[in-house]
Every structure is written in C-alpha cells, then in structure tokens.
C-alpha cells in the first residue's frame, strides 16, 4: 500500500509517520530518538533549529492549504560529506571540523524543494575513506544490532540513523561500497546509482570517477522515492546524464516476474558458508516470485579490488591536494607557505587518509604511473566490458554485499585486511553500474546483505527486484525482531 501524499509504502514505515501529520511534532519525536540512540554515534551534527524552522514553515503551508512536495514531512539524514548551506560539513575530519559550506549540494536543493526535513549530518569514515566508520575524527559509529561491532562504512551514520528509526530516508555516498556495506551491516536498503544518475555537485570529492551519491532507507519504496527526487541532469555536474529518470516508485511495484538473475559464482568464494547460505536463500525467494536464476562466472572479478584501490588512491591524492588550510578548513598558523601547509595537513588528516594520499601520489609518480595507474585503468576497462557481456543475458547479477559479518570495533588492524572487506562491492564502481543491498537475514544475530547489480541506468529493475523480495520477506520487521 502506498501513501497518497508521499508515495511511500506506508505499511513499511513506522507508526509515528502515520500517527501524526504535524511535521513539527515529528521533528521533536526524531530528536528524542536521536537522543536515545546517542551512544551509537550516528550523527556528527544535529540541526534542531534548522529542522524545526523547515517543519514550521511546512506546517503553515499545510494549514493554508498550500502545495507540498513529494517528501513533505519526511525526516532526512545526510552524510557529512554532502554540502549543506549554513550547516557544518566536516567529512568526519579534523581538517574540516569547523567548515560551514556557503552553498547547498544539488541533492540538498532537490530534497528541500520537495519539503524533506534535514535533521542532521551523519558520521562516516574520514573523507569516506574506510569500510567501517572507524576512521572518523569523531569516533566510530556503532552497529545497530551489536554495539561492540562496527556499523560498516563509510556511510555508517546514515545507515544507523535509519535503523534506529530516527529518520525515514538518508543520503549516503558510494565510492567502493560505502552505501551498500553499512546497509548490509544494519539490515536496511542502500542503493548506489549509476555513475552520472545523481549530481555530485556539492559532494566533497574522494575519487571523482567512482563517487556517487545515493539513497538509503528501511524499505524499498522510500529508497525509490528519494532516488526519484535526487536523480537527473545537473548543469553544475557535467558528468550527469540528461536522460529523464523514470518514476521509480511506480516502477518498483511493477513485479519482478520473468527477470533473469545471474548468480556470480566468484562472489561466493572464500566466504563463510552461513553467510553465503543466507544470500542463496534470498535469491531463492526471488526465484519463488518468478525470476529466472542461473549461475554465471566472472573470473576477472578478483582483479577489481587492487585496481579499485590504485585508482581511488590516485584520485584521492589529487582531490585532497586542495586542503591547504588557506581558503577553507584552515586555522591561523605561523610560518612560510610550505611550513603552514605541511602543518595544517599533518595535523588535519588522519592516518588512513594520509596513507591513501601517499599511495596515490606514489602510483601516479614518474616511473610507476604506467605500471600501476594505467594498468589499473586497463583492468577497469576489462571489468566494464565483462559486465556488459553478462548484461546481454541477464537483467541483474546477485552476490553477497559483504564477505563477512560486522566485525568488532578495532578488530581489523591491518590496512590491507580492511581493504579486502570491499571485495564484493568495488567492481560496480569501476564499471559505473547501479547496485542495491537489501537485508538477507541474520547469522549469529548479525545482519547479512544481498547485493543486486544492474546494467547502466537500470535502477528501476533493481528496485522491482528489491520490492518483490521485500513483499515476500517483510524484511523491515527484522529491525525490531532479528530472525
């Protein structure tokens, strides 16, 4: 059942959305929930005043019988690497601890235009560089189901803010899995759109050829609704596609019967049988709804991870060169230019960010560029082409979202071991494809995610699958009673 006013699947939204149409009251309830779950550290900044101001304005408009937008009254959490005018945007870094953007990202403009109420900025890995939200300058975000474990990342705060019920929709960004990973680890829905489907204007860049902003929610239709609002061409981001996005909410409900799904064999190798078992079960549910399922092989997939890290680090070293503390993020320090910049960067960046800037500088340097960066770009082409071949026969590909369960905070010490956690997710970014993670049940009371990958601009196909699967499993109830 879909709410006429918002287009959201009301049977999957929490009671308070239905119980109250007063947006101001809804903001107060959300603030209470945020306060109750404060220990999980999902938010870096809560914008009480801003949210109340938006809610009061909306309330006045509703009372006067004025027109309201598609997100009217829905509470939105925004990852803290997306620029919000007048609201601190830190990238979870000391470097930007006091940075207040003077303009809104395009996605924020679009959410405001549709009357979504932004309640705060969520925790993340510093500059989105991490897979667990542990590299945040503001401390880790904790997993919703086990507070001693990681939330996943880098969009960990957005995922946890949804799981706690504080907000209905959230924005994340995904460079190598940063939307899908925390979605899987907190049993919610996270969709990484096609590269160019959503404007990156106002997203503080990590790796520009891989970064993509995307929607997260507890249920499929809310995810579809937020995607519809943020998708589309933007003259301020010339990599955006000008083709019109379809009505994702309507598309999502059109059934999945007859869609062909390829199970990527390599995605299930070397992972715990209990995890792969859950993912196979989830694919079984899709088969029951009328999808055609077949196993496929993607032997080159194993090269995606090293290629991804080479490219992401190369782009990061270039993107983060702008942080010299002079135009923004700066403090007043003494000394000549070189001394000032070194001091600001040394104190402002955390260890993982420094490691990536360093490696990126190395793989781009004379003598190594051809061997590392250019070779990785060739791997990228091959991965892209191999995906395209598979999409001649299939509407979607299925894999686990994560190869492991949420680990204990501080449990992974080696950087390389941490990078390996992205094995299932990075190929999608190299090829610029859309992918969604949906809840696939629990192992030892910890959540597992099913990842569905689509062809370019086939978000609607992924949402059809996700919705058909949700209708069978009612996975939104798992947040209250993990099974």
């Amino acid at each position: 059942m879909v709410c006429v006013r918002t287009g959201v699947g009301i049977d999957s939204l929490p009671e308070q959305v239905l119980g109250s149409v007063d947006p101001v009251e809804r903001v107060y309830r959300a603030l209470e929930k945020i306060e109750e779950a404060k220990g999980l550290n999902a938010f870096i900044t809560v914008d009480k005043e801003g949210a109340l101001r938006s809610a009061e304005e909306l309330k006045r408009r509703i009372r006067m019988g004025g027109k309201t937008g598609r997100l009217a009254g829905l509470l939105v959490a925004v990852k803290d690497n997306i620029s919000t005018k007048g609201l601190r945007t830190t990238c979870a870094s000391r470097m930007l601890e006091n940075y207040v953007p003077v303009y809104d990202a395009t996605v924020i403009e679009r959410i405001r235009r549709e009357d979504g109420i932004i309640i705060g900025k969520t925790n993340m890995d510093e500059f989105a560089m991490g897979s667990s939200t542990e590299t945040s300058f503001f401390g880790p975000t904790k997993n919703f189901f086990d507070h001693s474990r990681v939330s996943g990342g880098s969009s960990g705060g957005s995922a946890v803010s949804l799981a706690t019920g504080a907000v209905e929709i959230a924005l994340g960004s995904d460079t190598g899995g940063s939307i899908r990973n925390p979605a899987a680890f907190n049993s919610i829905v996270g969709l990484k759109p096609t590269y160019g489907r959503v404007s990156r204007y106002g997203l503080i860049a990590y790796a520009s050829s891989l970064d993509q902003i995307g929607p997260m929610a507890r249920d499929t239709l809310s995810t579809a609704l937020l995607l519809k609002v943020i998708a589309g061409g933007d003259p301020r981001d010339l990599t955006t596609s000008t083709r019109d996005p379809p009505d994702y909410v309507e598309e999502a409900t059109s059934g999945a019967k007859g869609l062909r799904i390829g199970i990527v064999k390599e995605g299930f190798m070397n992972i715990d049988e209990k995890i792969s078992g859950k993912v196979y079960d989830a694919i079984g549910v899709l088969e029951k709804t009328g999808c055609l399922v077949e196993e496929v092989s993607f032997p080159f997939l194993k090269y995606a991870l090293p290629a991804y890290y080479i490219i992401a680090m190369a782009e990061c070293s270039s993107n983060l060169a702008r942080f010299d503390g002079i135009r923004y993020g700066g403090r007043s320090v003494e000394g000549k230019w070189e001394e000032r910049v070194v001091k600001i960067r040394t104190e402002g960046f955390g260890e993982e960010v420094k490691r990536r800037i360093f490696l990126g500088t190395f793989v781009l340097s004379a003598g190594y560029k051809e061997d590392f960066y250019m070779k990785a770009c060739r791997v990228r082409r091959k991965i892209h082409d191999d995906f395209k071949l598979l999409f001649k026969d299939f509407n979607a590909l299925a894999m686990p979202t994560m190869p492991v369960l949420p680990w204990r905070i501080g449990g992974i010490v080696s950087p390389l071991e941490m990078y390996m956690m992205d094995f299932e997710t990075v190929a999608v970014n190299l090829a610029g494809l859309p992918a969604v993670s949906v809840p696939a049940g629990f192992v030892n009371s910890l959540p597992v995610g099913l990842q569905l990958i689509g062809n370019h601009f086939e978000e609607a196909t992924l949402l059809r699958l996700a919705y058909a699967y949700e209708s069978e499993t009612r996975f939104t109830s798992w947040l209250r009673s993990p099974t």
Partner: protein
Amino acid sequence: MSGKVVVSREEILHYAKLCKISLSEAEVEKLQKDVNEILEYFNTVRSLQLDVEPMAYVSGFSEVLREDEPAETLSEDDVFKNAGEKDEKWFVSGQVLG
C-alpha cells in the same frame, strides 16, 4: 615489470614531502611497512598483460559545452567565510618564495 617494488625509507620521506605531510619516526616506519605490503598486493595488477585501452572514467556522455555567460556567483563575504586567515580582500598564505 613484474619485479617487486620495495619502497625505501628515503622514498617514504621524499613522497611525504610531495604530499606536504610530515611524519614522526614511528610513522615513517609504520607507513613503510604498510606501503610495501599494499604495493605487493597491487603487483597482482601490475603483472597482468592486457590488450585493452585504459579507462579513466565510465563515459556515456560526450563533451558538454555551455554558453560563456556571467552568472550568479558567491558574495565576497561567502568567499572568505572559511578562510584560515585573511587580510581585507586577500587570503593570507604565508611567504611562498625565499
């Protein structure tokens, strides 16, 4: 081509300088260890022979041009809002040469 790349202590210091990051003694040691471990892993890609063109970004869009017309821009106040240090209408960066 497929030989192992090992980064020396001197190279760590050299690249850190290029990155404009200073490192303590303990950090140099840790970074060297991490970097060499990661580069060894990157070697799996380095030794591949691939007969395809490199792909720097996923295209699908052609060159986009627009009219070169003045449009609304940030106010002077906004431009300086997040500056580390400013002097009237100037960003203060510290002495560059000498």
